[in-house]
């Protein structure tokens, strides 16, 4: 995964030079260790900024909404799939998007690294093939990237973007045999009481900052249901049930649309495990409607259509 940067700059440069795109959206080095930040490049001599390493965890497809210029976008497997979903929902004009596919071996989870550091501040972090060198005040540690990878990436089924216009480097072998629903299964095995306790405890610290909604490429409604006033369905304060309902309804809206890129959980300042809900939404799409999210723009969204033989075991 590391080292593809010069290839990316070369492809991006060609697309810009040949006028195939007006804008390249990619990643550049962040102002903090372990952080990358979105980069919007229009002319050649900014291309040097483009980077590609395990800190590039933001789902850039969020920036495609509402733009009508030709855009070259760097997309990991999950990002590309969310572009496909947005394309199938008519939110992104696929004709105007050039997907620069990035075979991805997984992004890091900063919260896992912070936990490992036990309060010590990370001053610098560099990557050396399979490991991560962390430097701080009076300490230096070498961590295996695999041990601090985002959970979604550990069981990722699409390390290579299923849809792309140009691929950077060679495709990676796909992961097989990982149970991506391990956490969801484990929660499902618990009693309703325990599950309710788990979600009350997790959602209890939510401050309703809506970063999970605003970093998610699937959330593009002009007026979100929590902002509606006529009628005001649910409360706007961070009272417990209103907060749980906000996350519950957002998860319902993600069924058959969420590609489990993990951007929401990574963005949450209060470290709420949002993936426990979004992964369940994805699991429902797969198990109940046998729908694999984000592979082709032809398939209609799960909740937009119906089949005669849809399961109805829950109906009495």
């Amino acid at each position: 995964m590391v080292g593809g940067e010069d290839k990316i700059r070369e492809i991006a440069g060609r697309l810009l030079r040949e006028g195939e795109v007006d804008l390249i959206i990619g990643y550049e080095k962040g102002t903090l260790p372990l952080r990358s930040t979105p980069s919007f490049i229009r002319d050649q001599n900014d291309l040097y900024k483009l980077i590609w390493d395990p800190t590039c965890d933001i789902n850039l497809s969020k920036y495609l909404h509402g733009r009508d210029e030709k855009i070259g976008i760097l997309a990991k497997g999950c990002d590309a799939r969310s572009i496909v979903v947005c394309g199938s929902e008519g939110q992104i004009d696929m004709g105007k998007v050039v997907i620069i596919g990035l075979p991805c071996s997984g992004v890091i989870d900063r919260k896992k690294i912070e936990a490992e550091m036990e309060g010590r501040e990370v001053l610098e972090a560099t990557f050396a093939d399979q490991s991560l060198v962390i430097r701080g005040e009076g300490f230096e540690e070498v961590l295996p990237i695999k041990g601090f990878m985002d959970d979604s990436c550990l069981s990722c089924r699409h390390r290579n973007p299923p849809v792309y216009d140009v691929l950077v480097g060679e495709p990676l072998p796909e992961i097989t045999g990982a149970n991506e629903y391990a956490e969801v299964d484990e929660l499902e095995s618990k009693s309703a009481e325990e599950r309710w306790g788990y979600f009350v405890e997790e959602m209890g610290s939510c401050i309703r900052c809506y970063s999970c909604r605003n970093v998610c490429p699937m959330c593009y409604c002009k007026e979100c249901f929590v902002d509606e006033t006529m009628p005001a369905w649910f409360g706007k304060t961070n009272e417990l049930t209103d907060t749980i309902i906000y996350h519950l309804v957002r998860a319902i809206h993600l069924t058959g649309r969420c590609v489990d890129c993990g951007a929401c959980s990574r963005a949450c300042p209060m470290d709420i495990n949002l993936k426990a809900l979004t992964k369940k939404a994805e699991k429902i799409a797969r198990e109940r409607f046998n729908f694999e999210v984000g592979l082709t723009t032809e398939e209609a969204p799960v909740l937009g259509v119906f089949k005669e033989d849809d399961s109805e075991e829950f109906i009495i």
Partner: protein
Amino acid sequence: MNHKVIAKDGIREFIDGLIEEYRVFAPVEGKKILRLREISSGEEACLDFYNTKMSSKEALFPQNEVLFTYKKDREAIEKEATSPMKREQVLFGVRPCDAKGVTLTDVFFSSGEHRDQPYLEKRDRTAIVGLACNRPLNTCFCTSTGGSPFGKEGMDLLLVDLGERYLVEILTERGERLLGAAHGLRDATEEDMKLAQRLSNEADNAFSKELPTEGLSERLDGMFEDPIWDTIHQKCVGCGICTFVCPTCWCFDVVDEEKANGAIRIRLWDTCQLPLFTLQGSGFNPRPSGKERLRQRVMHKLNYFPKEFGSLACVGCGRCVRECPVNLDIREIIETIMSM
């Protein structure tokens, strides 16, 4: 002599003493988040930390508070303002940047013809026990916004961690009263004071780079229509984190919620980064996109507020830098503005 010293293992006892008389808030290590919470014993307080995830504004200007309730039976409507807090409260272990944030909030909420009584009433009954920063974070820049890791603004007592004892500086008469709950206090010796001064100098020099904020608000005066705003906001996804974690963001929304036989009027945090903040009934929105909204956040903190109240409405705590999901760094914005 307003400098005392208390042994480190005496601090829990001091907090327990305070708890008898006051409601005490202190940094508490939640499941994964360090936040200012009300504690029922000194043990719960965590005093070895960089800074809390959310600022101490949580205890004075809670995310949602009921302004008043009203009951509605057939004819009469009686409304009853929320009763003021009975017991005084103490915010223990507040960092200098947060304490300065509190003073800026006080200035704003008591300015103008209409004072914000719900906040000010709580503030008058709140004592702040500060904890100096021996180790500022790489993202902290309080010295660039007129503050300092050993700053005293807004505090009643300032604790300085000297190793196995705390130097306690009494800053107000209320602070002195608080010390009544502490046992085993002794006057600070010359050596204590020298050590504290050394730690203070070390902390001041710990800042990797100084941000150029001299003349920042004057420079912003003519920059409302500057083209930098078109590019600076591009990566912002417009969520509310930067304003909710910020010690100097006090904008709020007011909503009514129905209850069994009446309703309550609630004040809750709001953010200028969301479109609903300025969306009008006619559908017109003076700040339709992220560009205007980011410009408002920067201009209010670094230009509008300083012009009226004389100091930046940013205390350099670095929370918005650390918590932004797309790493939009206000220090970078300040540097860009100053380099224009």
